[in-house]
């Protein structure tokens, strides 16, 4: 049985950072990813990473912006840690080789970003996530003796011992279909978000909420699952992301009449208000008939100097040209709000510990919570790195402290039986996986999106539960062992449905409007009753609801205007 002190599942920024941090503590580390690490979705983070590193800036200011952005649902102790440790982390990345943009003096330069009171976003053109992730992967290659890489291995379940502690995982080697039980003293989930539950989404096809579902299935609590971010600037239809950096560089949002409509919604911050605010403004314009016939508004980047566009927004030039047929340096591009980010996730403390000893979560999989009801742009990369590192360090410390127990082969056998069942279904025994996935995505985008109400969410929940039943008889075409993507998709569908159910239940429960959760039947924020987290725990009858307090250190909730 392969065994490591610390096993990391997922190799995006959070996973790679966790693996490197754990290895630095001198323990043996394995990192498992269902795709090659550099294919991970952290790549898509274009705009940058926040840190109060400039002499004129302060971590308190960064913390306050984050808290206000979160609509006061973020835990302030966690946000303090993240913003205090941010500058050190940026410098660490710079020392590892990230090619951050420089100012004229050759020092690190910044750009402006939404919801921030200072220009504190550090960046590499508009490929920041990609640049950081490729540099971390360079480090993984450098430390290949300390960190074993399992590239294109798919995790199907967590293994628990008699004391209800996590002691390993079950995986499938995608290349040959072999199943393997891994032993570990600590397991870190860093599998990203669940954007594929919505269609369209900016998220990659791999973002199917695997870690969230696996943790939930072994009894870990999920938190704030109703908080799903819709990004203000995505391409209609395909859902591709246009970075907030475009607005950071000065681009305008216009309705079909050519009005800069943000004047009416956020007169001070205009296009750079929080994402939930901008997305709602756009959706209101569209719903009230001031959008374009294709259900969009326009993002006008032509006001940004051309030289600056080529230097700082080149990826967007390519996206516009290749995927929308628009030269963004010459004409506005049509955009709309689109599914983008999972603020909720597996409930953890500030060291990535979940409710289950031995099980950690970091990055978008986790809910610490630093993002609360709405994540600020350029805080997600920061979250992955800070809490990836902290998880890695704590997971290594635990590994040094405990003996560890051997996972039972029963877990492996159960997974093998599940897979055998999926493989045994013959064509026509039920629906196709892809059909169920599409219905799920369209339902969630229609009912649990920017504007929500009880009837809609209830309808979505009923659909999800029907699809859960239908998934049990859904069939696949591929019955081979090598690169059976069909089988992986069937298991991912199960993960996605668990994610969707949790989001619907939490969205129904929160009877107020806060951050990304806007209930048209409860349009006001209600601190008296709802300044609290919604926690969910799995039971055979669906998620059981409980609440936990929001940690407030020094910033009392106030009305939120931009």
């Amino acid at each position, binding site marked *: 049985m392969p065994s490591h002190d610390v096993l990391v599942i997922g190799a995006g920024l959070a996973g790679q950072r966790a693996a490197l941090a754990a290895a630095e503590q001198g323990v043996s580390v394995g990192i498992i990813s269902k795709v090659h690490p550099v*294919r991970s979705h952290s790549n898509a983070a274009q705009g940058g990473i926040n840190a109060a590193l400039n002499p004129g800036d302060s971590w308190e200011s960064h913390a306050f912006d984050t808290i206000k952005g979160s609509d006061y649902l973020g835990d302030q102790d966690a946000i303090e840690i993240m913003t205090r440790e941010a500058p050190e982390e940026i410098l660490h990345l710079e020392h590892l080789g990230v090619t951050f943009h420089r100012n004229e003096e050759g020092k690190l330069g910044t750009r402006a970003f939404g919801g921030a009171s200072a220009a504190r976003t550090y960046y590499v*053109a508009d490929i920041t996530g990609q640049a950081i992730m490729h540099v971390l992967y*360079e480090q993984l290659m450098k430390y290949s003796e300390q960190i074993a890489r399992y590239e294109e291995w798919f995790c199907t379940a967590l293994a628990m011992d008699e004391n209800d502690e996590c002691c390993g995982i079950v995986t499938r080697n995608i290349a040959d279909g072999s199943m393997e039980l891994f032993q570990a003293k600590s397991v870190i989930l860093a599998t990203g978000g669940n954007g594929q539950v919505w269609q369209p989404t900016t998220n990659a096809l791999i973002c199917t909420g695997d870690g969230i579902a696996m943790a939930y299935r072994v009894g870990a609590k999920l938190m704030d699952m109703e908080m799903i971010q819709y990004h203000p600037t995505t391409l209609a239809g395909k859902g591709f992301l246009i970075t907030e950096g475009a607005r950071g560089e000065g681009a305008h949002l216009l309705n079909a009449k050519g009005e800069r409509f943000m004047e009416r919604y956020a007169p001070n911050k205009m296009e750079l208000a929080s994402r939930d605010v901008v997305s709602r403004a756009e959706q209101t314009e569209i719903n009230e008939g001031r959008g374009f016939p294709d259900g969009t508004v326009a993002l006008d980047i032509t006001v940004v100097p051309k030289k600056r566009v080529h230097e700082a927004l080149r990826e967007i030039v390519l996206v516009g040209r290749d995927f929308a047929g628009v030269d963004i340096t010459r004409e506005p591009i049509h955009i709309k709000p689109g599914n983008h980010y999972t603020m909720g996730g597996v409930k953890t403390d500030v060291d990535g510990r979940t409710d289950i000893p031995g099980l950690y979560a970091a990055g978008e999989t986790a809910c610490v919570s630093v993002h609360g009801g709405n994540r600020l742009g350029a805080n997600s990369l920061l979250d992955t790195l800070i809490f990836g590192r902290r998880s890695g360090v704590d997971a290594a410390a635990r590994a040094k402290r405990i003996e560890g127990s051997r996972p039972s082969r029963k877990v492996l056998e159960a997974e093998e039986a599940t897979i055998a069942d999926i493989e045994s279904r013959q064509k026509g025994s039920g629906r196709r996986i892809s059909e169920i996935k599409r219905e799920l995505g369209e339902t969630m985008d229609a009912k649990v999106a920017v504007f929500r109400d009880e009837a809609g969410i209830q309808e979505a929940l009923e659909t999800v539960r029907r699809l859960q039943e239908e998934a049990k008889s859904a069939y696949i075409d591929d019955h081979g062992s090598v690169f059976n993507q069909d089988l992986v998709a069937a298991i991912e569908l199960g993960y996605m449905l668990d994610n969707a159910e949790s989001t619907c239940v939490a969205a129904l429960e929160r009877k107020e409007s806060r951050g990304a959760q806007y209930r048209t039947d409860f349009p006001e924020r209600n601190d008296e009753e709802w300044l609290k987290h919604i926690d969910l725990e799995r039971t055979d009858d669906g998620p059981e609801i409980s609440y936990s307090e929001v940690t407030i250190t020094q910033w009392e909730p106030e009305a939120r205007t931009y």
Partner: protein
Amino acid sequence: MADYTIKVRRFQPESGEGPYWEEFDVDLEPSLSVLDALLQAKDREDGSLAVRCSCRAAICGSCGMKINGQSGLGCKTQIGEAQELAEKQASATGGDAKDATVVIEPMGNMPVIKDLVTDMESTHWTKIRRVTPWLLPHGDPPEREYVVEPESMIDITQSMACIQCGACVSSCLSMEADPGFIGPAALAKAYRFVGDPRDAETVERLHDLAEDPHGIYDCTHCFSCIDACPKGVAPMDQIMRLRRKAGEAGIEDPNSGHAHERAFVKIIEKKGTLDEGLLLQESFAPGIKSKLKPSKRAIKELLGSIPTVLRAIRTGKARSPVKLIPGAHPKLPDGAQDEVKAIYEHAEAHREEFNLYIKGEEGDEEAAIEERLEPPRTHTLADEEAQNG
């Protein structure tokens, strides 16, 4: 919606059969991608069709493949354009454009695992690891950031834009001839460190890459990788930069490529057209006429070239022996040589690297000129009306 037929080269390793072609009918907007077409076939008809993919937006680098024989990303190639190309190719080879289908194959220069999934580990990633792909700074890091020229970071950002999709490797003609060639992707990665002022091992890296017989001089300058790259990394340009830096560092080039390039430039500057008689001599022993002291290597190379020269003359690739006598080459008529000189001077004055992060895409330059030429709008029609009115 439009109807397309895609023809996919398939390989199911567990079937015991060799590769085969299979056609799928799909219906989608022409602006959607070849990957969208493949996913539609997979979703609707055959879930066993294997293709790596994730972001659908040319960021993750998963879906490298050959489309109508050209290496690229499935997600970045529009199905409508792919169909047009297939039709053009069919007519050009005397076929019927009506029957043309979009042909999709796995990437080249790599073993195939299943359908469009290739083994990138044994080729691409092994080569990437060959170039010591991590920063090797000198001593402890500074307390704050390394202070470096802003341009140097933008310069290597072009190599950092590489998403490791393997399209350049797939298209590389040198690698086809020499599978040991380090190749375009790994060498572009190497430039990311050689060009990085924070790296302290630049010269060692250059020696390593220059002295490896499968290193930087193995590139034949064919431009295939530049055409294939979906991110404008221009791997060949990065290889040429490595060569230039190696030349500047005084590293001897076993092919004399760097000296050959300099000889070309020098002769054209002097004579306007290529004096082949001087080319060998200038490449291997520059200044031979005045010094009359060619190095041992120069003599060896010159003598060794004689059979090649004779063969070239016989087959008509080089000019007659008389014209090969040094000095017999005619100069350009009238003042044409001065115009050539002017071009050199202009190039010298505008010495800059071609980098997409600085210059933008092709055509932008002209657009910029157009903008400058456009007369400033001094008054509008409304003003005119107001004046007239």
